[in-house]
């Protein structure tokens, strides 16, 4: 994937991410419509491909208003990934073609890779994750399960042990996929399914779209490194 193709693919996917997020604010809380209508309008412009650099700069400036409004990201890690993608994209489009531009976009790819690896590493050093107890706690009393029925999964320790180790091993092994194009495609497909499962079980829908939008960066980085 060429750098220009990857940048444009990221612009399109990021515009869809921001449109989805903006819709949730605009239609749910009238008081937040005023804040998110400009983001929706700018996202439509980004989607159309008209003057991407001024649009990205405007979206970046607007993101500061949103961060101040909620005293941080509204939706934790998913909003952080969306904004990181926006800032890397903006910087890449601002810099002249060459290694600086590649560095800005490559930083996003490295962060995608780290997002999986660090998540796996902090879990695997925790005895509660290795025994399956941590995931049991998530289902038993955390705020995440989307329905009361899902809490019954806390009573299935063997299944949760298997799920815990599957997640940890996948997250830890993710960087290895960078060494082969087919492995990376397979790893990204599994990762997307993982985010989809998190959306269904824990209601983390914004993570699906935010991470998908960052995938072109890692596909480009692999192409760039392996030739």
């Amino acid at each position, binding site marked *: 994937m060429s750098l220009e193709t990857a940048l444009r693919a990221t612009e399109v996917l990021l515009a869809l991410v921001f449109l*989805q997020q903006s*819709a*949730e*604010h605009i*239609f*749910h*809380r009238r*008081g937040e419509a005023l804040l998110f209508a400009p983001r929706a309008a700018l996202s439509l412009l980004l989607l159309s491909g008209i003057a991407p650099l001024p649009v990205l700069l405007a979206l970046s400036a607007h993101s*500061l208003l949103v*961060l*101040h409004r*909620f*005293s*941080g*990201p*509204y*939706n*934790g*890690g998913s909003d*952080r*990934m969306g*904004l*990181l993608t926006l*800032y890397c994209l903006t910087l890449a489009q601002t810099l002249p073609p060459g290694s600086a531009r590649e560095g800005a976009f490559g930083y996003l790819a490295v*962060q995608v890779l*780290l*997002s999986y690896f*660090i*998540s796996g590493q*902090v*879990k695997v050093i*925790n005895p*509660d994750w290795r025994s399956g107890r*941590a995931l049991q*706690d*998530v289902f*038993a*009393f*955390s*705020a995440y*399960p*989307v*329905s*009361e*029925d899902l809490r019954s999964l806390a009573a299935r320790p063997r299944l949760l042990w298997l799920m815990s180790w599957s997640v940890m091993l996948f997250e830890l092994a993710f960087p290895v996929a960078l060494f082969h194009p087919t492995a990376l495609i397979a790893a990204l497909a599994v990762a997307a399914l993982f985010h*989809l499962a998190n*959306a*269904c079980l824990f*209601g983390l*829908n*914004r993570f*699906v779209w935010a991470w998908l939008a960052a995938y072109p960066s890692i596909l480009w980085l692999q192409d760039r490194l392996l030739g």
Partner: protein
Amino acid sequence: MRKTLSLVLPVLIPSWQFFKTIEPSPRVQWARIDGDAPRWQEFRPRPQRLSPAQMLRRLFYSAAWNEALFLVSCAERIEAEPTAHSITEIQRRILATLPHTPDATLQFRLIFIDHNGQDLLYRSAPFPAHPAP
């Protein structure tokens, strides 16, 4: 400027430590304060069951659930250090979901649950059921 930097830096250098440990989990409860013992109700209780079709729909639009997750963040911030911002956010969203009752006085509290049971860690000051002008 310093505040902006403190908001942007964690975006530029994220920690990615998702679910590192499973801490006690907050629930927001609210009640009318009208002389009798308050009857605490959970704010936005989760449904008993979600169908696959509902889960699929929520993939594209899940405003109420994401608002509930934002309130979890506010509750965790209050537990760490109560701030006017987090308290106001919770009050505002409780008020927005209630029918208009101009004379009522409300209160919210934060219960933190873990496998040993639950603890009351915060109780707000009473606040009027109509938003400030």
